[in-house]
C-alpha cells in the first residue's frame, strides 16, 4: 500500500504539479522566478558550499539521467570491473561533494544572522530535501554497492513504466526502504519546483551563449509605426 503511494501516486502527483505549476508560475507570477541568491549577504562560505553543492548535484543529475536514458551503454561500460570502480568512485566523490556542500550551506544559514532574515520556510524545506537526498544517496552507494549496475536493471524499467503510464512495481518494491526513500524524495523535490527557489533549474540562462551583448527595446516599432494597417490586414479597427 505504501509502495503504491510512494512509488506511484507521489511520482505522478509531483510530475503533474511540476509541469502545470511551473507553467502557471512562469506565466502569471514571473516576478517570483529567481534563484534568490544570498551571496550579497555572505560570500565566503557560499563559495565553498555553493560550489561543492552545485557541481555535485549537476554531475549526479546527469549521471542519473544517463543511467535512465542509456541503460545498455552503462551496463556495457561496467563490463570491465576497473571501469565500474572508476564510475562508482566518481559518483561517490560527487555525492560526497554534494553532501559537504549542503552541510556547509546549512551551517552558513545557521551561523549568519543576516541570512536568517533571508531564509523562508520553503528554504528550510529545500534544505531538508537536499540533505535527505545526500544522506540516503551516499548510504545507498556505500551499503548497496554497484548502483550503476543495478540501476539499469531495476530502476530504469520502473521509471520508464511510469512514463509509459503503466507503472510496474515488481522489481522496485523488493528494494530496501532506504532506496524507496531516495526515490520518493527525488519526486518530492520535483514537485517542489514551482513553489521554491528550485524554479531556477528551469530558467538556466543557456541563451546567454548566443544572445547579442546589447539589448535594445522599442516602445514604438520604427518599421510598423506608420503602417498600422499592414499589421492587422483584414481587421477593421475596434472603435467602429
Amino acid at each position: 500500500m505504501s509502495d503504491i503511494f510512494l512509488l506511484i501516486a507521489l511520482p505522478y502527483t509531483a510530475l503533474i504539479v511540476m509541469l502545470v505549476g511551473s507553467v502557471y508560475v512562469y506565466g502569471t507570477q514571473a516576478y517570483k522566478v529567481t534563484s534568490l541568491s544570498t551571496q550579497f549577504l555572505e560570500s565566503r562560505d557560499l563559495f565553498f558550499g555553493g560550489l561543492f553543492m552545485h557541481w555535485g548535484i549537476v554531475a549526479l543529475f546527469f549521471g542519473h539521467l544517463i543511467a535512465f536514458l542509456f541503460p545498455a551503454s552503462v551496463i556495457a561500460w561496467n563490463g570491465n570491473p576497473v571501469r565500474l570502480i572508476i564510475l562508482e568512485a566518481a559518483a561517490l566523490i560527487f555525492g560526497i561533494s554534494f553532501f559537504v556542500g549542503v552541510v556547509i550551506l546549512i551551517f552558513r544559514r545557521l551561523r549568519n544572522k543576516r541570512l536568517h532574515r533571508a531564509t523562508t520556510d520553503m528554504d528550510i524545506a529545500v534544505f531538508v530535501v537536499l540533505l535527505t537526498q545526500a544522506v540516503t544517496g551516499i548510504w545507498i552507494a556505500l551499503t548497496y554497492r554497484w548502483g550503476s549496475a543495478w540501476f539499469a536493471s531495476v530502476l530504469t524499467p520502473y521509471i520508464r513504466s511510469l512514463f509509459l503510464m503503466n507503472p510496474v512495481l515488481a522489481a522496485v518494491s523488493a528494494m530496501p526502504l532506504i532506496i524507496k526513500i531516495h526515490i520518493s524524495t527525488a519526486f518530492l523535490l520535483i514537485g517542489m519546483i514551482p513553489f521554491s527557489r528550485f524554479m531556477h533549474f528551469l530558467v538556466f540562462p543557456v541563451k546567454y551563449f548566443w544572445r547579442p551583448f546589447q539589448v535594445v527595446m522599442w516602445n514604438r516599432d520604427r518599421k510598423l509605426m506608420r503602417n498600422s494597417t499592414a499589421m492587422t490586414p483584414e481587421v477593421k479597427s475596434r472603435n467602429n
Partner: protein
Amino acid sequence: MDVRSQIAMVFHLDKCIGCHTCSIACKNIWTDRKGAEYMWWNNVETKPGTGYPNKWEDQSVYKGGWTKSDNELRLKGMDRKSTMANIFHNPHMPVMDDYYEPWTYDYANLFEAPAGDDQPTARPISLVTGEPIDIKTGPNWDDDLGGSPDYARQDVNMHDLTPAEKEAMFQLERMTMFYLPRICNHCLNAACVAACPSGAIYKRGEDGIVLINQNKCRSWRMCVSACPYKKSYYNWNNGKSEKCLLCYPRLETGQAPACMHTCVGRIRYLGVLLYDADRIKEIASCNEKDLVAKQMEIYLDPFDEQVRQAARKNGVAESTLESARKSPVWKFVKEWGIALLLHPEYRTLPNLFYVPPLLPAIADTSTGSYETTCASLWGGIESSRVPMQYMANLFTAGDTEKIREVLKKLMAVRIHRRGVTVGDLHEDECKQAFAETGLTADVADAIFRLTSLPKFGERFVIPAAHREEATELLENTADIKGNTGFGTLNTPQRI
C-alpha cells in the same frame, strides 16, 4: 548612420554644494523598501575619497566595465563561458559590507523605557537583522574628508601621482575636496546589459534609459559586478537587481527626474543627444589615448539636416529633434566642449557628463599673510590644490592636456565676467584668455548664463514620450477613413 536619441545629463561640479538633497529625493521615491535600504541610486561622494561602495573605482577588484585585449572589446570581468562557470558564485561581486549595513534607531525606547537612573537612548538597530548593531560604516562616512586616512588616502585615482603630489593633497593648507554626485550613466555600451545572463536588462530605444525587467531577472547578479560604476544593486530580500531608472514615469509625463528637480545647487541639466548607434562598437574599442575624443564624436549635430533626415527615417519624433536642438547637454558637451565623462576608460560610453570643478589655488604664505590671488593668467589652474593628474584620472583617462583645456575655458569665462562686472582686469588679459581657449565674448556670456542663471525650462529640456504613438502598434487609430473617434459597442441593427 543609425540615429537614435538618448536622454543625457550634465552635472556642473562647481555648483555642487554636497547637500545630498538629490539622494534623499531618490531614496524617498524609490529605495525606501525592504532589501533596498542600503541602495543609493543617487549618491554624492567627496573626492578625494573611496566612494560608495568602498573603492568602487578599483577595477582590479571588482572587474567592472570593458577592456580591450587582443584588439577585441571584452567584458573585463567574465566572458560568456566563465560567466556560466561562475554562476554559482560570482568572484567579483561586492557584498553588503562593501556598501554598509543599513540601520534605524530604537526611537520607541525614548518613550517607553522604564523609569531609571539614566537617560534612555535610541540604540542603532540593523535594518537587516532587526538587532542592535555597532555602526562601523555608513553612506558618506567619508563626507567632507572625514576619516581621511581610511578614505581619502585610499582613493583609487591617485595611481599616477608622484609621492610628493600625493602627500601635498593632504597637507592642511593645501587640502581640498569637491563633490561628485553619481547616478546611473545609462551607457550606450552598457556592461550590465552585456553581462546579464537572462537578458533582463535592456536599453529603451526611444530615450536610451537602461532598465531591468523585474520579471526576467533571476538573481544571477552578474550586472552588479559588471557595472564599473556599481550602479546596479542587488535586493537581498526579493532576489532581484535594481537600478536608477532615470525616473522614467516622471520623464514620460514631462517632469524632471526627482534628483534633478530637487537639486538645490541647480547643478543638473538634462536633454536629448542624438547619437550614431552604428559606431558604438568601433568607438568603444578604440585605443585608450583616443577614447576621450572619440566618445564625443558619437553624438550627432541636431542642426545638421542630414542627421535630421536620418533620424526621421529611424522614427525619431519631430518633437524629440526639436528638444535635441534646445538641449543644454548639447551646448555643454559639443558646442562649448566643457563637459567630460567620468572614467571614460571603462569603455561603456556613459551619458552623464561632468563640468569639472575649478578648485582653489595653493595659498602663498611666504610673505606672512595668506595670499591666494594668482599673478599669471592661468595661475589658478596651474597651482590648483588638486594635481592635474588626479582630475585627469577621473575625467579623461589620464590625459592632463584635455582636462587643462576644459579648465582653461572655464577660467576664461570667469576672467571675462570679472572684466564685465568688476572691470579691474586689463582688456588684453581677457583677449589673451579668449585667444588661447578659442572662446568669444558671446560664447562666454552664454556659458555664464546657462551656468549661473538658467531657468527650469532651460535646465531640463524633456522630449515628449509619445505614448499615443505606442498605441498605434496595438490598434489602428487614424490610418483609414472612419476609424477615428468614439464608436459604439454594438452595431446598430436595422429592422
